[in-house]
């Protein structure tokens, strides 16, 4: 046994991702890599080729005639309930019975001996339907009188109308913010193995094993205890595998039960992108009243979202857009309303930030409007409107902002990025450069942490210590690259004071921890780390009691230190001590549990404390645009981000860097484009362009605010990191806007829509130039 005085992988250390070696050697197994039992069949989805239609029937005789096809699954084959809506609204069938609601909607599944056969056969269906008029975006949907997919939310504080009426300046505008495909590198996949009786085991790439389990049970018409869902790791999730896996898990499970053989389903990339939901696009109408110094007096906003044909998670997503429509700014009088519009498109879903980023973009657009109207540096307008003390600390949902660190954080970044001097230089550069123009922007983010569905804020963990001293860790969270397993294992290592390597990280399975929440809302470590710690504390308490008994010492004399246990003057290795405990019949296993304190939320009133705490950050980006073509480049980005006391600074920095680039991609080159027939035409990496290595800022300085500490009692005083830094990408969007504004001498807000593709940039330049001429 190692005899050093520190453990590996302690809390707050830069431990490597637990699977790093497996990643680089290709030995990390994803669902598609699991060895298949003999006779495994393959399923593939057959989809619609119209956006909206009355469905009369399916003629699948040609599909069935393909050699190697074993059978088909249609709505009629669903043994239980034909519904996979995650919020219980019953508005999302596995396969529709009478109406096609979007182009590419799954209508049936083919099951065949090979995936290739199933995929080819799926193309041969005859779909008998009568097309209906369709509405693709929220504006068209409102005009066509489409309903909301779920109840809208209103947040209100103060008196908006009076506030606007009293304000010296008022601006009204609209911004369209595009959606985003997750483009996880590993697409959806489910692999079901039938068992005895009603049993079925499903391996799948899901962020929410418990929900997949419940959905499979619901669709099969069996109790949840018959279904096991396993996930060792995902090749990326980003929210795209929170609810969207339900379909694939259900189809694989249905087929496995029907044919009594293992069944795998893996859509190709095109089908993955057309048949599963994305980030919601929004059309946001805003009105802001402000004084001559740029201080906001009133804000009104309507947030219409493209939700797609069903509700999925659109309720909480559009809610969160409103929760973040203030970003970091105090609105004295405010009324925000969501319009979760039904559209004839795939049902949109969770994506990192969960509607929050769209809200923040709206807030930053209003800041920009004010800055151009008052002729100020937008950063000054931002600072003038930050949440403060004395009556300037209430959000539109009436939560008090108690932990604001933006004044310090932004000032530090402003200094380290040399913002003021560079802005001055840029203004001079632009004056002398006819074609290339630069822009710079420093934008903050304040992001609320907790699921707004309060009951989701609970977690379980299971820790076993085997009698050789090795530890088995299981918790309800899922690993999708964020390093959750590593961080939770660090918590356990730290608590037991043993080396990280002693802890076996295992797949997430509904067999070990039941009723888990989605690994989402950045909450994975906050919740599961606490649950695991709770399990460890239970075991430790028993161990301490045992030691006190056996060695006749008071509890204070038992200490766990670097792979050993100190009991009075006695020093035992951890292994030896555990062995003794085992022989003394001490229970060495515990189930841990955690629920987030303090939070509550009354949606009808629009009041409460939905968030346990806030995470903060800021980014400063500089860009150059080419005013002949609209092409651009990000020259430099500086980030200062708050993760509280980081459990693992290296992994957290990785999250910040990755999230920034993903946020930048969302607002720049990632464009979802539907044709008039309602067909998504950017549905694979050939047409849908996420950032490449060469798109990242030429200079990229990323730092964690190492002085920050969560004022709430979170796991080791850390803060969640998954989502908040995504919104740092907005700094690039704002910098592009400034560069465009330069062509009209910064007198007009360019009102770029997102994503700011080279086309949007050039067209805005052209519009401003014409306006100025």
């Amino acid at each position, binding site marked *: 046994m190692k005899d050093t005085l520190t453990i590996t992988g302690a809390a707050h250390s830069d431990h*490597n*991702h637990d*699977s*790093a*070696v497996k*990643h*680089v*050697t*290709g*030995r990390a197994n*994803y669902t*598609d890599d699991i*060895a298949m039992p003999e006779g495994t069949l393959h399923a593939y989805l057959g989809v619609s080729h119209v956006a909206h239609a009355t469905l009369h029937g399916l003629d699948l005789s040609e599909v069935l005639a393909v050699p190697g096809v074993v059978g088909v699954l249609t709505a009629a084959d669903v043994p239980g309930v034909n519904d996979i809506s995650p919020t219980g609204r019953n508005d999302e069938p596995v396969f529709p019975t009478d109406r096609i609601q979007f182009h590419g909607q799954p209508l049936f599944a083919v099951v065949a001996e090979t995936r290739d056969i199933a995929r080819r056969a799926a*193309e041969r269906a005859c779909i008998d339907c009568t097309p209906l008029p369709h509405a693709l975006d929220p504006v068209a949907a409102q005009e066509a009188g489409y309903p909301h997919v779920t109840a809208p939310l209103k947040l209100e504080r103060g008196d908006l109308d009076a506030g606007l009426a009293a304000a010296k300046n008022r601006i009204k505008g609209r911004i369209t913010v595009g959606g985003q495909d*997750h483009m*996880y*590198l590993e697409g959806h996949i489910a692999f079901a193995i039938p068992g005895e009786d009603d049993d079925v085991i499903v391996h799948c790439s899901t962020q929410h094993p418990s929900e997949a389990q419940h959905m499979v049970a619901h669709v099969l018409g069996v109790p949840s205890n018959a279904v096991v869902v396993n996930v060792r790791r*995902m*090749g*990326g*999730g*980003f929210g795209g595998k929170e609810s969207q896996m339900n379909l694939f898990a259900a189809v694989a499970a249905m087929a496995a039960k029907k044919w009594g053989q293992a069944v795998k389903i893996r859509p*190709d*990339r*095109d089908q993955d992108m057309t048949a599963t939901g994305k980030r919601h696009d929004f059309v946001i109408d805003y009105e802001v009243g402000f004084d001559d110094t740029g201080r906001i007096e009133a804000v009104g906003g309507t947030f219409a979202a493209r939700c797609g044909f069903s509700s999925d998670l659109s309720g909480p997503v559009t809610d969160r857009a409103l929760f973040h429509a203030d970003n970091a700014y105090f609105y004295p009088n405010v009324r925000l309303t969501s319009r979760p519009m039904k559209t004839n498109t795939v049902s949109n879903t969770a994506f990192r930030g969960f509607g929050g980023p769209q809200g923040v973009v709206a807030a930053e657009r209003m800041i920009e409007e004010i800055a151009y109207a008052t002729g100020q540096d937008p950063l000054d307008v931002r600072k003038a409107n930050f949440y403060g003390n004395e009556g300037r600390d209430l959000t539109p949902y009436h939560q008090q902002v108690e932990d604001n660190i933006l004044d310090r954080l932004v000032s530090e970044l402003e200094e380290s990025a040399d913002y003021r001097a560079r802005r001055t230089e840029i203004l001079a550069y632009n004056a*002398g*450069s006819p*074609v*290339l123009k630069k822009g710079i922007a420093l934008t903050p983010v304040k992001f609320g942490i907790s699921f707004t569905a309060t009951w989701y804020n609970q977690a379980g963990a299971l820790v076993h210590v085997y009698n050789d001293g090795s530890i088995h860790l299981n918790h309800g969270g899922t690993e*999708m*690259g*964020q*390093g959750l397993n590593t961080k939770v294992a660090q918590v356990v290592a730290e608590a037991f004071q043993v080396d990280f390597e002693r802890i076996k990280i295992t797949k997430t399975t509904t067999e070990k921890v039941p009723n888990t929440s989605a690994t989402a809302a950045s909450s994975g470590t906050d919740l599961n780390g606490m649950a695991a710690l709770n399990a460890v504390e239970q075991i430790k308490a028993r161990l301490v009691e045992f030691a006190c008994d056996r060695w006749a010492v008071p509890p204070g004399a038992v200490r766990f230190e670097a792979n050993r246990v100190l009991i009075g003057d006695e020093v035992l290795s951890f292994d030896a001590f555990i062995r003794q405990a085992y022989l003394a019949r001490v229970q060495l296993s515990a189930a841990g549990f955690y629920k987030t304190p303090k939070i509550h939320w009354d949606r009808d009133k629009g009041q409460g404390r939905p968030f346990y705490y806030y995470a903060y950050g800021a980014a400063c980006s500089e860009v150059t645009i*080419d005013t*002949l*073509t609209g092409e651009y480049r990000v020259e430099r980005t500086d980030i200062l981000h708050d993760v509280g006391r980081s459990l693992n600074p*290296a992994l957290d920095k*990785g999250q910040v*860097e*990755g*999230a*920034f*680039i*993903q946020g930048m991609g969302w607002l720049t*080159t990632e*464009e979802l*484009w539907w044709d008039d027939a309602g067909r998504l*035409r950017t549905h*694979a*990496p050939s*047409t849908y362009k996420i*950032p*490449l*290595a*060469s*798109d*990242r800022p030429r200079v990229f300085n990323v730092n964690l605010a190492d002085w920050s500490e969560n004022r709430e009692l979170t796991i080791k005083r850390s803060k969640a990191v998954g989502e908040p830094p995504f919104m740092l990408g907005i700094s690039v969007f704002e910098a592009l806007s400034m560069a465009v504004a330069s062509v009209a001498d910064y007198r007009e807000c360019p009102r770029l829509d997102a994503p700011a593709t*080279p*086309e949007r940039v*050039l067209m805005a330049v052209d519009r401003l130039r014409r306006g100025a001429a």
Partner: protein
Amino acid sequence: MTYRDDIRFILNGREVSARDVGASRTLLDFLRLERRLTGTKEGCAEGDCGACTVLVGRLTEAGLIYAPVNACIRFLASVDGCHVVTVEHVSGPEGALHPVQQAMIDFHGSQCGFCTPGFVMSLYALWMQTPEPTEAQVETALQGNLCRCTGYAPIIRAAVAVSRYGTPAADHLTAEREAMTARLRALRDGRRVVTGPDDNLAILPADVDDLAQCLVETPGATIVAGATDVGLWVTKFLRPIGPAIFTGHLEALKTVAREADHLLIGAGASYTDCQSLLSQHLPHLAPYWDRIAGWQVRNMGTVGGNIANGSPIGDTPPVLIALGAEITLRHGSERRTLPLERFFLDYGKQDRAAGEFVESIRIPLPGASDRNAAYKISKRRDEDISTVAAGLSVTVERGRITRARLAFGGMAATPKRAAQAEAALIGQPWAHATFEAAAEALAEDFSPLSDWRGSAGYRMLSAQNLLRRFFLEQDADTTAPAQLATA
């Protein structure tokens, strides 16, 4: 003559003989499904994400060369005579991590890890060829690898640090180079290979003459060169391609050379094969070339295929047309040569008879008074299909434009010259106003389409602006930069 009926290659350490290899069978499916080498991933099956990157070593005149390629769109038949290296073969014999792997771990270069094997393979190939790369070289090498998690920064940090972990001299592929060369040589028997089921036949001609012969025998066959278009017909559109005649193994079709006043490019030369010759003699093409696809695709895709495919958005036709390139087509032993622009008849229709193939491309070298530019506009800077591409070439003598060839991609149903804009230039002085007039005239040359890559309005305005950019860049009196600097 007896034909061989199996595909022979070396997979990692072992020789493989695969029989009955249908033309459309991909290397990736072979690796994952048949050999259960699951380290190589499928992320897109269209050559765009790089998760499936493997190295293919082939014997060339310059010896054994390893290049990263996309296993997803590479057909199994096309690796005949090659050494295929997957991520499982990167670590040392005793499982010691490779410098690239260790650097990726130390710099936290993986998060979800799904893209990681592909990155490891690209970086492995880069390190073999450029052990101490600059950031810019790393970026170019990684144009064909997508990562959705890391934001790339840690991967770049790892890549520039790899040389600190070890040098290629100590690598096992280097150590085994001679032995591998001998093993690969032994696989060559100079015979035509015919394999696969009747409806999916794969034919590998013995040499270029045999290629001509195969095409005479089977004029309706699909020619498969780098498969960077044809691969997608199979993986995305499920189109049958058999019988297919493969050309990728014909080194004689890949020759590139300067001859007197022109460059001669074999139709089978990949983008990578042409790169250094083109950069040397046509420097304006160097940065443009780096923006065609990503490294893996450039290692497979050919200029001949880019032309023969007849796409209105292929990147090489506009710039080659502007330079006055000609192509030579061959049928049996008959050859004909025509100006490249005449090859493109209409959308999806080229001047190629059944049984004919493109043999070579001839590019005249510019004269001293010629001014040339190659421009590409795409939504994302790298590895993206052009929204608009332009090859612009003018001759300026005593301040006057005496010759103009302006060719555009993405503006019409075929790559096409802008006759009105050319007319607006010819005979006119080299001046701002002349180019303004040409930009105006361009509106009469084209009425582009709107699609997901760009609206008609954007295409037109940016194409017009490319003429303005050309003037600004070539004009001796203009000093301010007229486009973003290339890496």
